[in-house]
Every structure is written in structure tokens, then in C-alpha cells.
């Protein structure tokens, strides 16, 4: 026995805790929350949890920035038996996810207080999911990516079903879960095929293998790549793997939607970028056309179907599909510039999504219901600040200048043009043109003082949702005359999002440099 044990001595790899510090902070913080809630007998106000979560996020942000500092001084490195890439790219993801967690905790506080839900679970789930997204960005092994994907997704399934009061919440959780499991099975099969084709799941090894060898019979490799793309495309809601998005966004609790829109896209795109750009650049000529088609379909479907929506959350869901298309435009370019564009876009979009859904939640009020566009009629009267903020966020999503939204679009279009994907660039901008229509429709509705103005905007456009009778609209408009109550927590989060959107829109240099250097240190 002893000899066996002796023979089986395992040489543990060096664990560089700095390299995984942000993830550790999130997970450790999560455990702290769980522990505190278990140990303290009195009910702890949700704001306390939120503050703790924000503090955890802040710590991880600091750790991420420290890591970033390290990387930019000493170059990228791999940690913990080469399972992790610690490079500028990963650091960008760490910083972004940390920010998302911080902001989301504020919005969550407002929501949970409003719904009178106690307990740390929401925050715990968010923290775990966040750590999954972080791992997605820095994982250097397909197995780890798969695990991270699950760590990212499973809490999101739960968050989607978090609201017990609404049946839609459970339905959305079920749909998300079934489809998510389905797609991750496909993804896993893709990993298996890739493994067989290249002999490893480690991205570095795969890259090295592909760089050194010419696979003569590359059917399995191709199949693996295709299925990997399917898995990521599902996560980022690319057409035709997008169909869960509107339903889940519509059914899930609104702040959770903002969070999931942000982290799922961040995680999915970061990993996709790393796999395609860092590991399989040699196959670029193969995967580019496929992504071209997916991006085109995503752009156009997202924009056009959003036109036909009356439910604000569904509209934003389709708009997020449109945004995914834009990010895919950057990915499709297959260049460093494309990666930069995608990163910048992710950053801009994450904050916009968080902010937008938070406002949707504010407008819906208690019970998180009433997302019909009619609820927004005259919002400017009820709360000029919220209406203006929403207008800014929506216009930023449309790509208005002097917001992050503009530079985001600019960046990915630039990448597409640089890669000579002129047609895709044009299609993307056209879809933005279509998209602007429905953003404006909301803006118009919010600032309309009369009943007619908003409907005028629909002139010439047949909308299926337009069946609501005028009578009910009048009633709903009258019913919402009183001023909007806004939780200070949400307000704080909103101010942060707005500030980032506008300030980084006017002075994009820091973020652009960040994205720029992030990809230089791949």
C-alpha cells in the first residue's frame, strides 16, 4: 500500500494565485455571502448583500487591473498548468465582468427590495455566473471552457426562473435550460471531435498542432469546429441559434435579463474569439464565410423582427440579437482589429444592456410586469430623468455619436472593412438603420404627450402588435400618470452606466486603448 502511494506521488503544478485572483475573489465572496446568511439569524437586508457583492466586484476589479498591470509590464503568461491564459485579452474580460457584477448588484438591490425577496441567492448566482464568464475569457483548454460555460449558464437558468410569482419566469427558465443543455451537448460533441482531430483539448496545443501539421483528412476537425461554433453561437444568441433569447428575456426577471445579456455575451464571445483567432487562425478562410452568413442573418433578423414588437423586453431581446450580429461582424473579420472591435462592443453593449433593462424594470414597477410599449407613453412626464436616460441608452444602442455605441459600431465596421468585408459592413449599417426605427419609436412614445404621435411613427409599417384597441391604450396611459418611484440603488447604477456611456463616448481613448492593448497581448 505504502509503496503504491509513494509511487503515486503527484507533482502538483505551481498554482499562481494571482492569475486566478479575480475568479477566486468572486467565488470566495460568494461563499462568504452564503456563510454569512447561514450564520446570521436575523434577516439581512438585501442592500447589505448588494453592497457586499459590489465590494466583491470592486475587489475583483482591482485584482483584474493589477493583473492587467502585470501583464502589460511583463507580458502574457499561462498559469496553473497552462489551463489559463493570463493575457491582455483575458484581463479585458476580467475587468468587464467585474464592472458588470458591480453594476448588476445595484440594479439587483433595487429589484429585490421592490419585490421583497430576501436572501443572498441572487447575488450568489450572479457571482458564480460572473466567475464563469471570467473563466470563459481566460480559459486555455476546451474542457475548461466547457466547464466555464456551464458555470456561466447554470446560474443563469436559475436566475431566469427566479421570480416565483410569474409563470413566464418558470417557462423561460425551462426553455433556457432545455435549449442550453441541448446546445452544450452539441458543443461537447464538438470538443470531442476536435480532440480526436488534434489530439488535445488544450488551446495552445491545438494551435501548435494546427500550425505545425497540415491535416490531410480534416473532416473531423471541421466537424468539431462547426459544432464549437454552434455552441458559442447559441450562447451569444446568433441566428439561427437565437430563438431562446426573446422568450427568456421576456420571461426572466428584468434585472437578471440585463445581467445575463451582458455576461453570457461576454463569456461566449471572449471564448469564441480566443478559439477562432488565437487557436485556429490557420482555418480562418474556412470559418470566416460561415460567420459571415451567421452575422448577416443575425443582424437582419434582429433588426427586422424587433420592429414588430410591442413588448419592450422582447424588443430589447431582438435588439440584443442585432448587437450580437455586430459583434460577429468584428469576429468575422478574423483580425486583431476585429477582436478589438468586438471587445469594445462587448464593453459598450454590456453596460447599455444592464442600464436599459434596469430602466425597463423601473418602468414596470412592482411585480415586474407591464412591459408593453404603452406603459412608456408619457414617461417623460412621469420621470424626465428616467425617460432621458432611456433615450440616451437607446440612442447609444442605435449608434448615436458621442456615446460608446457609436464607437462600438465604428470599431467593428472598421474591422470588417479592413478585412474587405464591405458587403457585411454595409448590411450591418443598414440593419442599424432599421434598428434606429424601433429605438426612436420608444423614444417618441416616452416623449409623446398626445395619443397620436407615437402611432404616427408606425405609419407605413404594419405591426402585428398594433391590435391593442385605442381604448385600452387610453386607459393604460391614464393609469400611469403618477410620478415614477425609483430606488436610489437603481439610480446609482443608472448614473454609472450613463456616465460611462457618455463619457467614454466623448472620450473613448481609454477604452479604445484598453481594447487595443488587450489584443496586442493575446
Amino acid at each position, binding site marked *: 500500500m505504502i509503496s503504491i502511494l509513494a*509511487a*503515486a506521488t*503527484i*507533482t*502538483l*503544478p505551481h*498554482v499562481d494565485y494571482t492569475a*486566478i485572483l479575480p475568479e477566486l475573489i468572486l*467565488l470566495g465572496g*460568494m*461563499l462568504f455571502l*452564503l456563510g454569512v446568511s447561514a450564520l446570521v439569524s436575523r434577516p439581512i437586508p438585501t442592500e447589505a448583500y448588494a453592497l457586499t457583492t459590489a465590494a466583491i466586484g470592486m475587489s475583483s476589479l482591482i485584482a483584474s487591473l493589477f493583473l492587467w498591470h502585470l501583464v502589460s509590464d511583463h507580458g502574457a503568461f499561462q498559469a*496553473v*498548468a*497552462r*489551463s*489559463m491564459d493570463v493575457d491582455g485579452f483575458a484581463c479585458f474580460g476580467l475587468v468587464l465582468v467585474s464592472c458588470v457584477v458591480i453594476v448588476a448588484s445595484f440594479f439587483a438591490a433595487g429589484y429585490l427590495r421592490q419585490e421583497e*425577496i430576501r*436572501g443572498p*441567492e441572487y447575488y*450568489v*448566482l450572479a457571482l*458564480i455566473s460572473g*466567475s*464563469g464568464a471570467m*473563466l470563459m475569457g481566460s480559459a486555455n*483548454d476546451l*474542457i*475548461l471552457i466547457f*466547464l*466555464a460555460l456551464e*458555470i456561466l449558464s*447554470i*446560474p443563469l*437558468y*436559475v436566475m431566469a*426562473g*427566479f421570480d*416565483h*410569482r410569474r*409563470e413566464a419566469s418558470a417557462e423561460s427558465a425551462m426553455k433556457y435550460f432545455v435549449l442550453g443543455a441541448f446546445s452544450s451537448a452539441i458543443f461537447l460533441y464538438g470538443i470531442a*471531435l476536435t*480532440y*480526436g*482531430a*488534434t*489530439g*488535445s483539448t*488544450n488551446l495552445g*496545443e491545438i494551435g501548435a*498542432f494546427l500550425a505545425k*501539421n497540415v*491535416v*490531410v*483528412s*480534416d*473532416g*473531423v*476537425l471541421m*466537424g468539431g469546429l462547426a459544432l464549437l461554433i454552434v455552441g458559442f453561437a447559441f450562447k451569444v444568441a446568433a441566428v439561427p441559434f437565437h430563438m431562446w433569447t426573446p422568450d427568456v428575456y421576456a420571461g426572466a426577471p428584468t434585472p437578471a435579463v440585463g445581467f445575463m445579456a451582458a455576461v453570457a455575451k461576454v463569456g461566449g464571445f471572449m471564448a469564441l474569439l480566443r478559439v477562432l483567432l488565437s487557436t485556429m487562425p490557420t482555418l480562418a478562410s474556412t470559418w470566416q464565410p460561415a460567420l459571415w452568413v451567421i452575422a448577416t442573418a443575425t443582424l437582419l433578423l434582429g433588426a427586422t423582427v424587433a420592429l414588430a414588437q410591442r413588448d419592450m423586453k422582447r424588443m430589447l431581446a431582438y435588439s440584443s440579437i442585432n448587437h450580437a450580429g455586430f459583434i460577429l461582424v468584428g469576429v468575422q473579420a478574423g483580425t486583431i482589429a476585429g477582436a478589438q472591435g468586438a471587445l469594445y462592443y462587448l464593453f459598450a453593449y454590456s453596460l447599455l444592456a444592464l442600464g436599459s433593462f434596469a430602466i425597463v424594470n423601473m418602468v414596470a414597477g412592482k411585480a415586474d410586469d407591464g412591459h408593453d410599449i404603452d406603459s412608456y407613453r408619457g414617461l417623460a412626464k412621469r420621470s424626465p430623468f428616467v425617460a432621458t436616460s432611456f433615450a440616451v441608452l437607446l440612442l447609444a444602442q442605435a449608434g448615436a455619436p458621442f456615446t460608446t455605441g457609436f464607437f462600438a459600431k465604428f470599431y467593428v465596421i472598421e474591422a470588417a472593412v479592413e478585412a474587405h468585408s464591405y458587403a457585411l459592413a454595409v448590411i450591418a449599417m443598414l440593419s442599424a438603420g432599421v434598428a434606429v426605427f424601433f429605438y426612436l419609436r420608444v423614444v417618441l412614445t416616452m416623449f409623446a404627450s398626445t395619443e397620436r404621435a407615437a402611432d404616427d411613427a408606425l405609419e407605413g409599417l404594419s405591426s402585428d402588435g398594433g391590435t391593442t384597441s385605442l381604448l385600452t391604450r387610453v386607459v393604460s396611459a391614464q393609469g400611469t400618470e403618477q410620478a415614477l418611484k425609483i430606488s436610489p440603488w437603481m439610480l446609482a447604477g443608472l448614473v454609472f452606466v450613463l456616465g460611462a456611456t457618455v463619457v467614454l463616448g466623448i472620450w473613448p481613448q481609454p477604452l479604445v486603448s484598453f481594447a487595443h492593448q488587450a489584443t496586442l497581448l493575446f
Partner: protein
Amino acid sequence: MVSGLLATATIPDAITFVIAAVIVIAGALGVVFMKNPVHSALSLIMTLFGIAVLFVEENAQFLAAVQIIVYAGAIVVLFLFVIMLLGVDRNERISVENSSAQRIGAIVLGLAVLVEVLLLGTGQWVTGAHSVTGSLTGHGANVNVIGDSLFSTYLLPFEVTSALLIVAVVAAVVLARRHDGHENVEVEIGGKEARELAASRDAAVGHDADQTSAEDEASLR
């Protein structure tokens, strides 16, 4: 076919493989086509068992054991537990399908996937570099090799799985949580809604069935 199977393998291996494969496929088909979810779950165990056999056949003894213990022993039991808990062990009317396009599409596309995967492998299935992570036939038994690798190369993934398990716990808590104070109302509403829904569903299914048969009759005439 048989000769193909025996081209490289010994007869016992071949027999083992064939039996296991049959079990696997039969189980898989059972999962899909058994009307009663309990039967499906049992079929799943069949498949899992078959696969465990294949694992042994492929020198993955440790995995074979884990397969049985975790999958058959825990996961499927969980399924069964839930089925029993919810009392949903009644038969699903598989023959009734509101959307025939769904079924046709499912089978066509599913077979298309199969054909595609097989086409992918026509040239050569395995093209990768050998023993990148570590040789299977290295020192010690299968367990040793796996353990060694797990705590060195795959240390981080291994640690990370802990997060997954915590998620499972927290998720169970969240999903099973009852709202203090609101729950009674909820249950009532839920119960009522559910009853209505069940009724309407039955009606809808029945209606659909009627309609289908009516259509069939019409087409016969």
C-alpha cells in the same frame, strides 16, 4: 460487416462490442420511444450500462465504474425520484403530435446530423497528435494515470467543478424556496391555473386528435 468488425479485433472483443452496442442503442431508443417516463429512465440506465461496458472494452475502467456509480446510481435515480415526486409517471401520447412538421423535421434533421458526422469520418477519424496530455499506458493503473493527470494538468478544471456543485446546491435552494407569506396565494392561483390549463390541454389534444381523425376520414373518402 462482420468481417469488417473482425478485421482487427478478436472474437470476444467483437462479441462484447456487438452486445454492448445493441444494449446501448436499444436503451437509447427506449428512452426516446417509451411512453412512460419511468420506462425511459430505466432504458437510460440500460444505455449507460452498455456504455460502461464499452468503456471497459476501451481500457477506461475507472470511467466505467464512475459511469455506473454516478450516472446510473445518482443521476438516473434523481430522475426517478423526481418522476415519482411529481407523479408524472403517466403515459405520454407519443402518437399525438400537434405539429407533424416538427416530427418530420426532427427525424430528417437528426438523420442529416448522423449522415454528416459519418461523412466527416470517412477519411480518417483520428488525426491528432498522440499522448499530448500523457500516455494512457504510462505507469500504474488507469486510476493512477487519471488521478495523476487530474491533479496536475487538470488541476484548475478540477477545482472549478466545485463551483458547479455549489451552483447545484444554491439552485436547488432557490428553486425549491417557498415565498414567505405569498405562497398560499400562489399555490391557490397556481393550482387553479394548473387545473384550467390541464383541462384546456386535454381538450386541445382531444380536439386535435378528433380533427386529425376527421381529416383522415376526409382524406379516405
